[in-house]
Structures are given as structure tokens and as C-alpha cells.
């Protein structure tokens, strides 16, 4: 059994699964139930001066029969009196001393930061998370993402926190920036030991087309909210990895956040540099119980890969995240369709025809029919099956790939509804590995067929 416990800036946590600061961590009762379910830590719903919330507060986006591919919210920080939260936090820490309790904080002035940090630490909180991320409501008052998007302001407040805090400080970053390295480097300059990301993405969830009001609707109006859930995971992975592979930011402890729903998501965040992961939407959707699968799945995965602890997994995939210019131009894949598994839906065909490079063909067509259908290249090798199969016989609807033309884009594999029916096979290109950057270095980074002005400029400079 792999060791799931982690060390986050010197704080031990029973596992890397923490609840993000959000409605699931609104009260002591909730957090204690979460710890009972198996969560290793919880970032309390952000503390600050009390606020007033609106109704409604959440908007969801579905895809097909799947509910809540994404969720957005316009709820503000905690709406409960500070003293109630502090009392409950203290009680949680007393009852669950080995679990990680993180206080999320959001106030404005230096004096307010001084006071709230002292009060939060008095509860026994193990870590402080400065909420510089919320992109709705609070940012209009100069807090949340308004701080996260201004590296100088972020740095200044982070320095105050470092001055006041006795426990380690985490800066929670907003994804609503052009370059995540700017706030990341500001955090480094301020001397904080950790960051968490991403907070939610600015969003409008849709429009009520009968009322002509965006969603979620508050009476006759709406406002932009913070978008989270499975749909934001790729954005979060990218932004987090930008920091992980950065020489300075990569030294910070990272708590990864964004669409994590199960152990595999968590493993991916850890492989790209996270020490802990935070979960919100999946719990809002399914409840605290999902942590059982996360613990078990990650533990079995580590065992299977021969890793003894989570720390062995951390950052494993970071070196493989490169610039485009460092990718091997000689690497070649082609799609292979398993005729025995194919169910004949021909989604790969239509996707390749209309959305890619017209290199998947339908069986039984003459050359003329193929050209009429939109193929400009007729394959040399037509599988026997394809031509001989008659309508209604097995194989009659199985498309085939023109391997000479296939650009190996993956699209057919991505649209195929049958697991393992379409695979991408490596084929030797006969070329030594070479990247675009190699070509630039060698001066062979010119592809003919472009603009005259470019060619002229190239001649002039050479």
C-alpha cells in the first residue's frame, strides 16, 4: 500500500485530497462529515467581513445526458458571522487534529489582514490561503481576482501576510489573466511558500431566451460568475503546469484545483506538479462520498506503478510539457480501424471528411464516387474487405484509412464511440528526430508556398 500522506510546506496531511473553499466547507458540521468520509483537508469557505448574497447563485452547463459538465456561481464569501466560523474551525481542529485545516481569507486593508490572520491562526488552522481568485462580486470591491490580476497589488498584500503569519501562506490564483507567470512570479517575490490554482473562470452560463436574461438569473438580470467543474480541468492543468515548469515558481508547493472529480484527475494534477488537490464541483454534485474512489484509485495506481508515495508521482509529467517548437516533427502516427470492433457508425468518416484531412474512406466506392464525395486523394491500398463487402454484411460499413494521407491527428479516435476500435499506431518516418527549433537553429525553418513579402524579406536578410 502506497503512502498517501503528504507534506505541504511542512504540514502533514493524511492524503492529498482537500475540499476547496466553497459551499461544501461552509460549516463545521459539513467539514467534520467530510473528514469522516475520508477527506484529508479542507479549505474553509472564505472568511472576511460578512456579505449579503443573491438568489439564485449557480448555473450549470450540461452536455447530452451528462449534467454539470461545468458549474458557475455568483455566491460571495461566507455570509456567516466571523465569530461563528472561527468557533467552528477551532472545534473541527480540536476534534480532527491530524486533518489539515486551511483558512481562506479575503479582506482589504493591511489592518484587516493583520486581524484576520491572527484570528484564523488562533483557531489552530494549519495553513492560510489568501483568496486572490474569485472573479465575481468581490472583485468589484477590489478584492479576489482584482488582486490576483494585479501582480503588484498581489505582491504587496502577500508581503503583509508573510509579515503577520506564523503558519505557511498559500496564494490562490485567478486564471483570469493573460499570463499566469506574472502573478506566480509576484508570489515568489513576496516570499510565499505555496500557491493554489485555479480559482474559477469568469463566465456567463447562458441566456434565458424567453426572458432575454443571462444565467444564472437574479430577477431581471444576471452577472458574470466563476466557472468550474470538469470542463475547466484542461485550463487548470495548463496554468498549473506553466508554474510547475518555471524555474522559480516550480519551487513553490502547489495545491491543484480545477474540475478534479476522481482519482485519475487527481493523479494527473499531481503528475504535473501538485502536492495536494482541491475539489469542489464534484462534491457539490455527488457529495463527500466520492473521496472513497479517489483514495482507493490513487493508492492502487501508485502500487501498480511501483511508487511508494504520492511524492514519487509528483511532477513526473512536467518535463514532458514543452514548447511547440521543441516537439519532434519526424514523429508519425496513423489511425488504424479495428474492423472486428467497428460498429459502422461512420462518425470517424464524417469527422475526417468535414473536420480533418479527408483520409478515411467508405468501403465499396468506385474512384469516381470517392472523388464526388470530396476525396482528392485516392488510396493505393484498398482493403479487400472494403471492396467485397456488400450492404448488410459485416464489414460493409467499416471505413478504412488512407495511411499515406493520414496526418495522425487523433480526431477519428476521439469521435469513435467504441473503446479501442481506432488506435493510433506509430509508423517510422525514416527521418531523424528534428524540432522546429532545430530548424530555426540550422536556418532551415522555411516552408515554401507562402507570402511574397516574406520570401523577399528572407532574401534581404540572408
Amino acid at each position, binding site marked *: 500500500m502506497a503512502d498517501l500522506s503528504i507534506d505541504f510546506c511542512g504540514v502533514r496531511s493524511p492524503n492529498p485530497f482537500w475540499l476547496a473553499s466553497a459551499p461544501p466547507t461552509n460549516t463545521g458540521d459539513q467539514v467534520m462529515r467530510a473528514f469522516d468520509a475520508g477527506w484529508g483537508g479542507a479549505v474553509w469557505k472564505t472568511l472576511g467581513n460578512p456579505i449579503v448574497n443573491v438568489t439564485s447563485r449557480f448555473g450549470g452547463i450540461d452536455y447530452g445526458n451528462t449534467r454539470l459538465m461545468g458549474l458557475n456561481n455568483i455566491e460571495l464569501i461566507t455570509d456567516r458571522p466571523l465569530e461563528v466560523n472561527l468557533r467552528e474551525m477551532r472545534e473541527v481542529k480540536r476534534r480532527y487534529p491530524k486533518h489539515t485545516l486551511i483558512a481562506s481569507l479575503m479582506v482589504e486593508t493591511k489592518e484587516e489582514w493583520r486581524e484576520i490572520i491572527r484570528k484564523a491562526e488562533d483557531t489552530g488552522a494549519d495553513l492560510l490561503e489568501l483568496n486572490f481568485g474569485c472573479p465575481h462580486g468581490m472583485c468589484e470591491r477590489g478584492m479576489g481576482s482584482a488582486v490576483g490580476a494585479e501582480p503588484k497589488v498581489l505582491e504587496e498584500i502577500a508581503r503583509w501576510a508573510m509579515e503577520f503569519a506564523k503558519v505557511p501562506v498559500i496564494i490562490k490564483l485567478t486564471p483570469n489573466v493573460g499570463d499566469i507567470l506574472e502573478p506566480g512570479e509576484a508570489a515568489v517575490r513576496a516570499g510565499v511558500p505555496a500557491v493554489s490554482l485555479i480559482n474559477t473562470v469568469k463566465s456567463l452560463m447562458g441566456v434565458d431566451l424567453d426572458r432575454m436574461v443571462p444565467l444564472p438569473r437574479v430577477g431581471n438580470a444576471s452577472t458574470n460568475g466563476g466557472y468550474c467543474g470538469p470542463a475547466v480541468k484542461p485550463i487548470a492543468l495548463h496554468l498549473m503546469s506553466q508554474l510547475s515548469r518555471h524555474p522559480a515558481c516550480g519551487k513553490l508547493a502547489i495545491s491543484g484545483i480545477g474540475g478534479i472529480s476522481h482519482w485519475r484527475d487527481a493523479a494527473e494534477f499531481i503528475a504535473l506538479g501538485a502536492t495536494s488537490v482541491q475539489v469542489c464541483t464534484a462534491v457539490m454534485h455527488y457529495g463527500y462520498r466520492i473521496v472513497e474512489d479517489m483514495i482507493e484509485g490513487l493508492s492502487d495506481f501508485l502500487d501498480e506503478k511501483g511508487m511508494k508515495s504520492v511524492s514519487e508521482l509528483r511532477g513526473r509529467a512536467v518535463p514532458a510539457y514543452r514548447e511547440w517548437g521543441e516537439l519532434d516533427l519526424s514523429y508519425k502516427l496513423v489511425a488504424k480501424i479495428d474492423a472486428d470492433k467497428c460498429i*459502422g*457508425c*461512420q462518425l470517424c468518416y*464524417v469527422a475526417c471528411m468535414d473536420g480533418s484531412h479527408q483520409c478515411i474512406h*467508405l468501403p465499396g466506392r468506385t474512384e469516381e464516387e470517392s472523388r464526388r464525395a470530396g476525396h482528392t486523394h485516392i488510396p493505393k491500398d484498398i482493403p479487400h474487405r472494403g471492396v467485397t463487402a456488400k450492404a448488410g454484411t459485416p464489414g460493409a460499413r467499416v471505413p478504412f484509412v488512407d495511411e499515406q494521407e493520414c496526418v495522425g491527428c487523433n480526431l477519428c479516435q476521439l469521435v469513435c464511440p467504441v473503446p479501442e476500435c481506432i488506435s493510433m499506431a506509430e509508423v517510422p518516418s525514416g527521418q531523424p528526430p528534428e524540432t522546429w527549433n532545430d530548424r530555426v537553429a540550422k536556418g532551415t525553418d522555411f516552408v515554401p508556398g507562402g507570402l511574397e513579402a516574406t520570401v523577399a524579406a528572407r532574401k534581404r536578410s540572408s
Partner: protein
Amino acid sequence: MRVMEPKRFELPPGRAEEGFQDKKPLYTPAEAVAEANRCLYCSEAPCIQACPTAINIPEFIRKIGTGNTQGAARTILSANILGQSCAQVCPVEVLCAGSCVYTGWGREPINIGRLQRFAVEATLARKPNLFQAKPPTGKRIALVGSGPASIAAAGLLALEGHTCIIHERKAIPGGLNSLGIAPYKLKGPEALRELEWILSLGRIELRTGVEVVEQAQGPGQVSASELLASHDAVFLGLGLGADSRLGIPGEEGEGVQGATHLIERIKTEAGLKLQGVQRALVIGGGNTALDIAHELALLGVEVGMVYRRSEKEMGGYVHELEGARLDGVRLVENRQPVEILREGGKVVAVKLAATRDGKPVPGTEEQVPAELVVMAIGQERATGVARAFPGVELDARGRVKVEPATHRTGNAKVWSGGDCVNGGKEVVNAAAEAKIAVRDMQRHLAGE
């Protein structure tokens, strides 16, 4: 433009069919969307190829999924004007759903029939005027019979702006759709509502209680020659004739009924009681036999279905046999009735002989008690009406001969489609044949 008064056809209350539950009830919107979202939206989908009317099924299903229910109904009804009844009566198991890629994959196919029913029913309830007929052309078309083929043809012709006059021999219009469909699929009033919707599409007049004959003898009859003379074209949608008989001793008299006749009674007769009938034997192995056997079983009768060959040689659909068996029908294969036994005039038993190659083997007879015997061994052809039209020819099996690509008969002004041409197929085949005929009639009426 003259507006036809909306007609409404009623059936008497207290019909036996009212007690039948819908086997595939109307989806709720949420159910429909969930099922629609299962569809893979195949390219050049096999379900379209399996549909005789080539409805673009993945397209209409996608539209249901996006909330564009009206567009879904438009897609369906543009390809098959009888989209409502076909949704309920089509043997989807052997057509669209049978060819669904999920079926080949060993998974539950998309419930295409139920989705189609939802799209059409939900839309027409809100917006019956989904289509607008073209301006009047002044052309008049006579249609003989008001079953699915004629109704489909009349609807399509009316949308082209032609005036249609339908002649129906019976008092209740709709033919097979209103009188012959198993009530757990489609009830009479549902078929009549669809018929009324088609009548509302344009200039269609439906005359019931009018028989088309060679030479009219009085009121309630009209001569074929008169129809030909006073119309620009004629469509024959004659359907099939009376139930065939076996010709065995004891067959005449009460207690022995033809299958389609009995189904019609279940669907139209008020207060039909199968008094004293505990056990019934249905003779035949086709889909009509399965339908009446299934219906009787649902009415509480103990039903045996007697077929002269083996189960695997049956003409009826496997899924229909399965459904009938689930509701209690017992198949008696390789047996044939040789005599119906009566006591005091009442049927008490049937003498069944074992068969070899479908022929009774003497000396193998046994008596099986039954109070009702239903003959479902086929139907006569409606040959008389067809012959009344000069030039219209019949094949050796009594079917109206047409040119397959045009559905035109030997008479250049007469087209035909449906059961009288194909010998007895599905409603969807009638709709498809009507489409072919109307396309050719259009060319003819346009003077091409």
C-alpha cells in the same frame, strides 16, 4: 380559397380496445431528450436505409435532443406524412431499430419509434399547421379507399394544391389504420386524429359509405368510368378483402371468425363481449394471427395459436411472438385443424392433425377444446374494384400490377399502392408507395 370544414370522426364509447394499455406510451419531454441523447448521430446511418420512407432519423433525433421538436416533426413528416401512425405501428425491431448500430453492438437500440411518436405528437398538438398547401391547381384526383396508402397520397397531393376526393366503402374511414391495428399499438381514435390532420392539410373531401363499382346501380355507388371521366387522375388504395377460410367441416356458423373481422369488432364495436369464450384457437402463423392471438390473450382468453409448420418457419415477427408469449399466448406448431366440432351449434373443440411439410397426417387427429376459432390464414384480394378500371391488371395472386418506379397501373390515369399492390405489408410501405405514386402523378399532372 374554399376552406374545408374540419371533420371529426367518432367511434362509439365502450369499445373493447379502450381497455388495452399502450405498449409503448408517449415519452415525456425529459424521457425523449434522454433517449435522443443516446443516439450516436451516425453518418449515412443504416436506420435511414432501413426505413421504406427514408426518414432522416439521426437528424430528427438530434433535433429532439436540442429542443427543436418542431424541426424533428418537420423532418419526419416531410419524408413520411403518416409519421404519427408509423411511429406507433412500424415493426421498428426489423426496420430502423433493427439496423441501429447499437443492435449490432449488442446494446439496446435507440427507441426510434417512441422518439418519432414524441416529436410528431408533441408538435401537432401545438402546431397542426406545420405545412402550407400550395395554391389550388384546379386538378382533381379521385382516391378509392381511405386506408394508409390513399390517405398518404391524398395528403401529399393536397399539399401540391390539388383537390382530392376520397371514396370509402365503409362508414368508418382509415382502413387498416383505424380498423386493423392492434390496440396496444394504435387505437382507432388515434388513427382518426391523424386522418383528420391529413384532411386539414388542403382540399381533401372524404366520402364515406360510397362503393366504387363497374356500373353504379344507385345511391352509395359510383362507377369507375365516371371517376375516370371526371378526374385528372385516380389512385387505388384498395387494401385487402375478407378473411380467407380453410374450408373444413364445422367452419360455418357462429364461434368461427375471421381475424381482421374480429380485430375490427374489438376496435369499433360498443360493448363487445366474448361471452362464454374461455379458450380460443387462432389459426395461422403470420402477423395478423399474432395480433389477434395477443389481443385475445390480453382480453383474458386462453389462446393457442395453431400453425401448420414449425416456429422458425412462421411469417410473423419474432419480437411479436415473444410479446404475445409474454402475455400468455401458446404456440401449437406443426398442427392443422381438420374439423371444427360443435354441440348444439356452439363450437366446443377443434380437431387438430399433426402435419408433415405443412400437410395433415391422417390418423394423428386430437381434439382440443375451444369456444372460439379465429381464422388468420390470409385475406382475399379486392379484385373486383380493380377490375372495374379498364387497363388495370392483376397478377396471379390477385395483386394490382404497377410499374415499380412509378406505381402507375396499366391504365395511364390510374396509380395504385398499399396492400392491394404489395399483398399485405406495413403501413410504412403504403406510405412509401404513395410517395412514389404521387411523384409520378405530379409529373403527369404537370403535363410532363
